[in-house]
């Protein structure tokens, strides 16, 4: 049995994880022992916890080491990923500030569950071993299963939780089997050792290893909703409460891609040239299916769900590219994606009104002139998602296309570009509704809560800053 030695320095390397776990446990206890506190106390405490974790994350800046005997890796990618996860969690918690007015359920467990899900994501981002990836994945997934079904008196919410749980459990099974096969072939689950093993003979991987990596890809494919593993996404996104949908759409996808980056882009990179063919096909399928089905959606949540499937396809293009530019491009795109998606969901959560009754796109009609700030925010997010300059969405896609073209994937880029074009139609449909159609009943749209206002502000600032001056962020990602 290999011995695992834990030094004191190792604890620092997972400082954000530890901080957030402690805060999560504290929030659970707080909720139990003082249940009559103001319903917003727990989310705000959660925000404090995220703030502390963010500070801890900045302490990790500049380090490059592998700790816990090769199980945890700290490098600049870790820091960036932690930043993405923590920011997503913070912004999603802010969304619950107004959501708790609109939907009548007990919100006590909401904040701690979000924190635990974030802990799982951060573990996935800093994993140096397949087991840690699995650990992080399960922590995140179980928390998300519960969060998806949080509106336990609503049939859709329960359906989404059950679907997510069943299909997620199956996917985890595939992943675990893949890990087991890989372990069987290589003799260890440490990613670094797997890389060295493959490097010895990259052209003739054993069948066991090939199957192992294949099953791992299937497992990840489910988590980031690649086609044909995407079927759960629209139903789960539609049924889950709006802040949870926002959180899943950004955070769970980012975590999935974090794991994919760690495994495929770094560890299995030599072997991955065999897999690039399959990933190429998956990328094109995902982009195209997501965009085409989104064209016929009239429910904003389902539309955003299919749009997120399509965006996963674009990010997979970066994985296929597999050069020095691609990891930076993927991370930049994830940050841009976070801002534009959270902004869109923020506006959607306000417009959806009480008990999320008004989620069809037609309820956005006339929003541009009756509620100019909401309309402008949604328009900016839609333009960014479509990839129109001068927004972050354009810069992100541009960077991904550059990475793919640099490795010579011309046709992949052409498909990506055609898909961007198709997506313009359904994103602009929302803008059309907001600015070019007559308003529907405006009183049903609640006032803008300050928390949600903050999310919208952060989204717009982020979109324009990354769109006009991406230099700072790009050089940070070197």
């Amino acid at each position, binding site marked *: 049995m290999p011995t695992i030695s834990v030094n004191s320095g190792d604890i620092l390397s997972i400082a954000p994880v530890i901080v957030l776990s402690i805060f999560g446990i504290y929030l659970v206890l707080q909720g139990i022992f003082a249940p009559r506190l103001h319903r917003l106390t727990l989310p705000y405490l959660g925000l404090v916890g995220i703030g502390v974790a963010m500070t801890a994350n900045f302490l990790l800046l500049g380090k490059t080491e592998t700790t816990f005997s090769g199980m945890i890796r700290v490098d600049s990618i870790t820091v960036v990923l932690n930043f993405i996860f923590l920011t997503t969690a913070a912004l999603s918690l802010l969304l619950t500030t107004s959501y708790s007015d609109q939907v009548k359920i007990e919100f006590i467990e909401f904040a701690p569950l979000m924190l635990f899900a974030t802990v799982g994501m951060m573990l996935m981002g800093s994993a140096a071993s397949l087991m840690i990836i699995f650990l992080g994945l399960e922590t995140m997934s179980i928390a998300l299963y519960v969060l998806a079904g949080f509106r336990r008196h609503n049939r859709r919410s329960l359906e989404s939780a059950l679907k997510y749980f069943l299909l997620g459990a199956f996917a985890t099974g595939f992943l675990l089997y893949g890990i087991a096969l890989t372990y069987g072939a290589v003799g260890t689950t440490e990613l670094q050792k797997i890389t060295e093993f493959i490097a010895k003979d990259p052209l003739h991987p054993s069948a066991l290893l090939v199957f192992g990596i294949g099953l791992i890809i299937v497992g990840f494919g489910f988590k980031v909703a690649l086609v044909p593993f995407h079927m759960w996404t629209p139903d789960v996104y539609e049924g889950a409460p709006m802040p949870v949908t926002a959180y899943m759409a950004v955070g769970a996808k980012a975590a999935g891609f974090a794991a994919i980056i760690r495994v495929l882009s770094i560890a299995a990179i030599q072997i991955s040239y065999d897999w690039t063919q399959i990933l190429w096909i998956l990328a094109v399928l995902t982009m195209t299916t997501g965009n085409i089905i989104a064209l016929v959606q009239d429910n904003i949540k389902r539309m955003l769900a299919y749009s997120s499937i399509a965006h996963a396809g674009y990010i997979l293009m970066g994985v296929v590219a597999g050069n020095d530019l691609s990891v930076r491009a993927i991370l930049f795109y994830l940050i841009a994606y976070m801002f534009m998606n959270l902004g869109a969901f923020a506006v959607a959560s306000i417009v959806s009104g009480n008990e999320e009754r008004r989620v069809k796109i037609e309820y956005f009609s006339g929003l541009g*002139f009756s509620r100019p700030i909401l309309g402008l925010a949604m328009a900016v997010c839609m333009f960014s998602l479509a990839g*129109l300059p001068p927004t972050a969405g354009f810069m992100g896609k541009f960077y991904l*296309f550059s990475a793919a073209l640099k490795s010579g994937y011309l046709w992949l880029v052409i498909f990506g570009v*055609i898909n961007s074009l198709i997506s313009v139609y359904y994103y602009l449909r929302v803008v059309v509704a907001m*600015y070019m159609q007559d308003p529907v009943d405006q009183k049903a749209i609640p006032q803008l809560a300050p928390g949600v206002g903050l999310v919208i502000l952060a989204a717009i600032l982020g979109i324009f800053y990354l769109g006009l001056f991406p230099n700072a962020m*790009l050089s940070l990602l070197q």
Partner: protein
Amino acid sequence: MNMGTILNLVTYLPLIGMVILMMIPRSEEKLLKSWAFLVSLVTFFLSVVLFVRFDGGNPNMQFEVNHSWISSIGASYHLGVDGISILLVVLTTLIMPIAILSSWTAITSRVKEYMIAMLFLETAMLGVFVSLDLLLFYVFWEAMLIPMYLLIGVWGGQRRIYAALKFVIFTMVGSIFMLVAILFLYFMNHTYTGVYTFDLLAIQKIQIPFGVQFWLFIAFALAFAIKVPMFPFHTWLPDAHVEAPTAGSIILAGVLLKMGTYGFLRFNLPLFPQASVYFAPVLLALAVIGILYGAWISMVQKDIKKLVAYSSVSHLGFIMLGIFAMTVESMQGGVIQMINHGISTGALFLAVGMIYERRHTREISEFGGVTQSMPVFAAFLLIVALSSLGLPGLNGFVGEFLVLVGSYQTVPVFAVLATVGIIFAAVYLLWMYRRVMFGPLVNKKNQNLPDLNGREIATILPLIFLIFWIGIYPSTFLRKSKASVEMLVEKMNLAKVEVQKIKKKKFADVVFPGSFFEKK
């Protein structure tokens, strides 16, 4: 003050004005309109300063501004004007205040958002004409879509949403392939020079092999051909023009269409000279088809605005003919015709707008004998119509004559066919004028139409003035673009020699060479 600063100011003053305008409350409509008009007027005067100081004998870029923008990928904030773009910049800044003035009474709802869109559009358009960095150019090119989409879709006519969406999607189809081509050039430049940059002047220096030029030319040409619009990519134009509000049509015809021809002059010809020479016959054929087809379709239109819209297709065909005939005269003709078309067709749309505001119809059959109720209008419309068809003494003649004389030297067949097109232009314009203005005043509703008021005269008078100035003494404008055009033509002549050699090789070998990319 440094000239580069003035160039920056000219580009961004509308945007700054827009930000200030956002703070004006919605109810102060008069203030909103006046402020927007003032901003665009000041921008115009600044651009005139640039025009006057521009040295027509210098073929290179002037008033350059060059800062690093996204240093990690090599994108720079590089602006500059040469002989071709300075004329277009002044055209843009001239058209904008006229367009804003023309919408004084036409736009009654959501005035604030309208003015915001107009000012944002102006910065985006100016940015397109002055950008010398490929990424910056692309950003401005796409950014221009959003306000135009809103202008057509919110304040337009009955089928406005369809027209706006068609406009956006058509333009984006072209520009999206242009993006791939830009990225391609970027990586190619790195292979040749080891430097990652998007700077146009740097990329112009590398010698791109013909096989690659072939495809890149097509990618760029698609984007610009849709914008011009060349046959058969022109189908978005009638819808967009007809459904747009008057000011939208003026800007669309006056400036936006020129971006297509400008793109050919700025990118396709200098970057891909051999491919340009190689493709010239195709583009010339399409240009002449555009001239004739546009004219024939205009002849049978029943809606005045649609007639003018199709006439744009016809006129832009002349410009394309001038560009791809590749002689100094024809290209100078093309350049001046760009300005002329902006002025003449802009004025035509202005006139249509004036009639529409009075009668809320654009059907030719509804009119007849309007001269009797609106004599001043009749005079102006006659001058504009005659300028559009190229009467000597007015601006249209200068451009068309130069184009035809120039293109007759290199492609006489096309020149002859194009000359025939002038006859058709006379047909549709004069016939329209006769049916609308002359003849007996049959329709009672036309009897008491108010003639032009002071504001309307103020919008059309500058254009009339320029029509005569360019018609009688075009040298003021031609001498600014002469050097840049001459340099371009020289480059083309060099390319012609090389294309002769290429034509001897096997086509397939040249166009589909082995993989060019660096494989990882």
